[in-house]
Every structure is written in C-alpha cells, then in structure tokens.
C-alpha cells in the first residue's frame, strides 16, 4: 500500500489529523534537506512535501520563490533530489510527496518521471499548474506505479468541478485556503468551513488545507474542519532564519513541533 494511504488509514483509526510539512529541496542545500526530513519526522510531521525548485514558480509567494532560486543556484536537479530520496529511504518510511511545477515532469515524460520517482521511494505528486483536465497521461502513470496524484480544490472551484476533481485525486485532496499564492497572510477566510463541507459531501478521501497556515492557532482551527494541515512558507522562513547555523535542522524541528502539537 502507498505510504500516504497507509498513513491516513492509521491516523483515521487513531482519530488524528495529519500534519504535512513542505520544504524546498536543495534549500539551503540538499544535505540540509535530507537532515531536515529526518528531523521533521521526529518532530511530528506525518507527511513531507519536497518542493522541486523551478525557474518560474507562478503559484508561489516571495518566501518559496526565494528558496527555489537559491536551490537552483546551488545546482539542485531532479536527479539529485531523487538520489537524496533514496538515501532517506534507507533510514525512514515517512510518506514523501514531490511538489513540482509541470514542466520538469513533462520535459522527461510523465511516465518516465513517475517511474523514476516511484523507484526512488516517492509516494505522491502535487503539481499546482496541472489540473486533472490536463493530467490524463500523468494519472495513468501514477496509477501504474501506485503513486498518489494529489489535485487541488480552491475557494473558486465551481460546484460542477468538485466531484470530478475529488474523484481524480488520490492520496488526499489539497484544499487551497484562499485564492492566492503560497505564504502567510493576515487571516484565512471564514467561508472555508463551508467549502470543506461541500467537498466532504462528494468524497470520503482525506481533505487537507494548505496556503497561508503559519501559526499553532491556525493549525488547530484548520485541523478541526479537515483531515490535515499543510505548512510551507512558515517553515521555509524558519530555515532562512537559522541558515548557516549548525543546529538549523534541530531548530526548525522545534518550530514544527510547536505547530504539529497544536493538532
């Protein structure tokens, strides 16, 4: 069974919600990313999203943009990221999803990319600029290799799209808390509870909320109305804050501990 599905099964049985941490692979270095994944697992992350840095991250706010550019400057490539994943897999079974823009996938071919990712130990794919409407080939490849294909719902998603997206999404459904890019904002709109309920009516798949979640209070509030919470930019900021310090992974882990324990 796919590690993401297994994780949600376990969480459900225990009556718990998922804490999903996003970090940009290669920021500040791939060695640091490897250490971070293991440290985050220790600090209560249930699933980790590894961002593949991209030259044109149009769905990301300034924090992840900056991390992506730095990671690319450091020479981070898909191949090196998958090598790192293989190294992680020797010591950890934490569910790992790749978050990437579509072009690095399309460039090598959907089937080839998914095969390589699955072989390295990746459990899911999240591609913000690939709606299910354009994902026929990728979905087939993910199905063939038992890789979760995680699609998005957004506050602007029309009623007619909710069911087909929920059906196409495997692993979990990524619910964008607010129309916008990644990164913290002043508040998360109150309508989200209603939107999540609408999604829950058509699917029993886990629905997790991401974009703009940055404090323990928000984590708690969002977890109350969903199956899990995704935090990205807030963790990247913490990495930046402690960048260059020897105990950076431990310090970031301590920060994540505060967030995940709010669940």
């Amino acid at each position, binding site marked *: 069974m796919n590690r993401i599905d297994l994780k949600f099964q376990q969480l459900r049985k225990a009556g718990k919600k998922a804490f999903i941490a996003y970090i940009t692979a290669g920021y500040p270095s791939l060695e640091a990313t490897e250490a971070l994944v293991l440290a985050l697992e220790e600090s209560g992350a249930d699933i980790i999203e590894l961002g593949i840095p991209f030259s044109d991250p149009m769905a990301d706010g300034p924090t992840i943009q900056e991390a992506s550019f730095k990671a690319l400057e450091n020479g981070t490539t898909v191949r090196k990221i998958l090598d790192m994943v293989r190294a992680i897999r020797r010591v950890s079974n934490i569910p790992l999803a790749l978050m990437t823009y*579509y*072009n690095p996938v399309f460039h090598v071919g959907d089937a080839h990319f998914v095969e390589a990712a699955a072989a390295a130990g990746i459990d899911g794919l999240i591609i*913000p600029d690939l709606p299910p409407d354009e994902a026929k080939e990728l979905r087939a490849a993910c199905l063939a290799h038992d890789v979760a294909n995680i699609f998005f719902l957004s506050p602007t998603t029309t009623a007619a799209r909710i069911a087909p*997206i929920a059906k196409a999404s495997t692993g979990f459904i990524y619910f*964008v808390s607010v129309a*916008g890019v990644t990164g913290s904002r002043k508040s998360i709109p109150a309508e989200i509870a209603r939107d999540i309920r609408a999604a829950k009516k058509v699917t029993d798949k886990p629905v997790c909320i991401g974009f703009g979640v940055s404090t323990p209070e928000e984590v708690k509030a969002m977890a109350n109305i969903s199956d899990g919470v995704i935090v990205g930019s807030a963790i990247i900021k913490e990495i930046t804050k402690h960048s260059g310090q020897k105990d950076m992974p431990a310090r970031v882990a301590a920060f994540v501990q505060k967030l995940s324990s709010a669940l």
Partner: protein
Amino acid sequence: MRKKRLSVKKNKFPDKTGHYGDLGGRFVPETLMAILIDLEQELKNALKDPAFKKEFRYYLKDFANRPTSLYYAERLSRELKTLKVYLKREDLLHTGAHKINNTLGQIILARRMKKTRIIAETGAGQHGVATATVCALFGLKCVVYMGAEDVKRQALNVVRMRLLGAEVVPVQSGTKTLKDAMNEAIRDWVTNVKDTYYLIGTVAGPHPYPMMVREFQKIIGQEARQQFLKKEKKLPDYVLACVGGGSNAMGIFYPFFYDASVSLIGVEAAGHGLDTGAHSAAICKGAAGVLHGCKSALLQNADGQVQNAHSIAAGLDYPGVGPEHYYYKKIGRADYVAITDKEAIGGLKLLSRTEGIIPALESSHALAYLPKLARQVKGKKTVIVCLSGRGDKDMGTIQEVLDHESH
C-alpha cells in the same frame, strides 16, 4: 513547403478543450480554472453579439485608426529585385503598434464582465502602453507588471504608461524581464481574481487567451488579404511576420491559413546567434514545454528549467511562443526562421533608407529576412510583410548601436 496537405477541418482549432493538436490547453492553478471557463463563455457570446462587434469596430476605426494601409514598397522592391514587397502598416496605428487591436477587444470584454481592475504584463512596454491607453479610454484602474531590467531599458514607455494613469510595478524576481513580469501578473490575478481582469498581450497563456488574441488580431490579415487581392488580383506568394509570443504574426497568418498557395514565414529572434544560447528562437531551437498556462515550444535546459531569452528587440525577448504557431510548424503550414540582432539592425536601416519608414526592432526581424528570401526565390514573387510597429521607442537602443559602429 507548400506541398504538405492539411488535414485540419475548417475552424476546428483550438478544439473544445482549448488544444491545438496536443498543444495549448490550460496549465494553471485550480483557482484560475473557473474564471478561464467563464471567460471562454463570455468571449463566445461576445464574438456572436452584434453589439460587441459594432463597438469593437467603432473603436478600431475611430480611436485606433483602422484600416491600416497596405503599402507598396517600390524602392525596397527594386533593390531586392526578385520580390515585390507590400507592407501592412500596423505601425501607423494609435500607440504605434498592432498591440492596440487586442487591448481594445479585451477591454470591451472586461467591461462586459464587470471587471473593475485591469492587470497586464509588458516587456518592451508596447503592450503595457496599449493597455494603459484603453484603461484611460474607459476610466479603469490599470496595473502593469514589468521586469525591473525592462523598466530601465524602456524608460520612455514607463513614462507613457504613468502619464496614462497606470501603475507600473517593477518586478525584481528571477531574470527581471518579461517572463518574470508574467509570473507576477499571474500571482496578482490568482489573488484578486474576483474583480481583476488579466489582459494578456500575445497569443500565449491558458485557453482561451491564444484564441482570443488571435480573434482580436486577425483583422490585420483580413484587411491585408482583401487589400492585396484588390491591388494585385491574386494572393501573395509569401506572408512574413516577426514572432516573439507571435500576436502580429498570428493576426496576419490566420486569414491566409486555408490559402495553401501562400507561404507563411514567421521570423524569430536569433539574438547573438542560434548557437550562442543567447536568443529567443523557441520554435527554431526549443522543445515542447509548459509555461504560463500553455503547452508550446519553450527554451529550457536538460532539467526542464526555463532558460533566459535574449533579443535586441525587447518585444521578442521571451522564452516561449504561442501554441498555435508551434502547431502550424508541426503540421507544416508555416515555416519559422531566425534573424540575429545584427541582421535586424540591417533590416531597420534598409527600410529607413529605401522607404522613409523607421520600423520597430521587432518588425525589423521580418524585414531583415527579405534579402535572404530574395536570393532563394525563382522568378518574381510577391510578399506581404507585417510592419507591426514603428521604431520611435527604439531610438535609445539604435543610438547605442550606431555609436558602437562608429568607434
């Protein structure tokens, strides 16, 4: 190049899902899907609505100054010997380039959709100026994203936009040029999608933009075809246009699509040379890829990262190209060639000297291909060149080149 049979049925592209073969489409965050579906429907309704057509035609005529003339370039033709050259004078339009055709069409649509805030991206500033112009015309709030590098290179157009009431936002991320301006415009759009209309300036982006911009620019080719038939009692042998994103080229190519005897040639920017890595020739040198919402030709490295484009013409300085152009290339309907910075300067000088018309550096790429074509053809051939814009905006760049040459 003309022998390949076309299997495309009339008006069947893009298909219902916005694809040109396997190109085009909608590669955007879910948050934008609803507005794109909505926009597609609004566009369909508008294109069928006599009131929309009447309003669009009115502004094209009385505000932008259409129709533009199809001018026989006699002295240029004499110099080229084997070619009889006509120029489609989009340079004579208000704001100095073909861009105004599209911005007028889209602003009328945006008003029908009750959008109150307009955003746009711009490279050279021509599309930004054309957008700021129509926003001033209708009293709408306008925000233009422009790479910080381009803000420096095209300072005069920044002044024009600000005079017209637009807010110009210098984009500091990435390469600080057009592609980054487009990233930032998309980020704004995804955040303010309720009240904001994104006015894209070329035949790229997610469906329905490539189709919509083509529909608003095809007036160029419709006029040129009629004017040529009237003057020459036949169709031209060649139609030439420069291709960055490709809006002027698509505008003039599309109405000739089914005229199989007419060769369509798109001229990309070879920058310092196609083998230097410093160019913008997405079709000639790129591979299929996905950027800014559509699948098309793209300059990218082995890891699928988008590569920086280069051209002396800021309006061609983009690593992608409209999907319909790549489609034309794939089905063999159009050919794509590339002209270097240096050759483009030659094209600019050639037209200035022979006809008393100073073309934009973008259009100069198409003109620079004329002497090459003239050497290839057998007998005497006729050609229409889309003179997409005038050169006033480029005088700073030209001055630098001339100074450099005289040293």
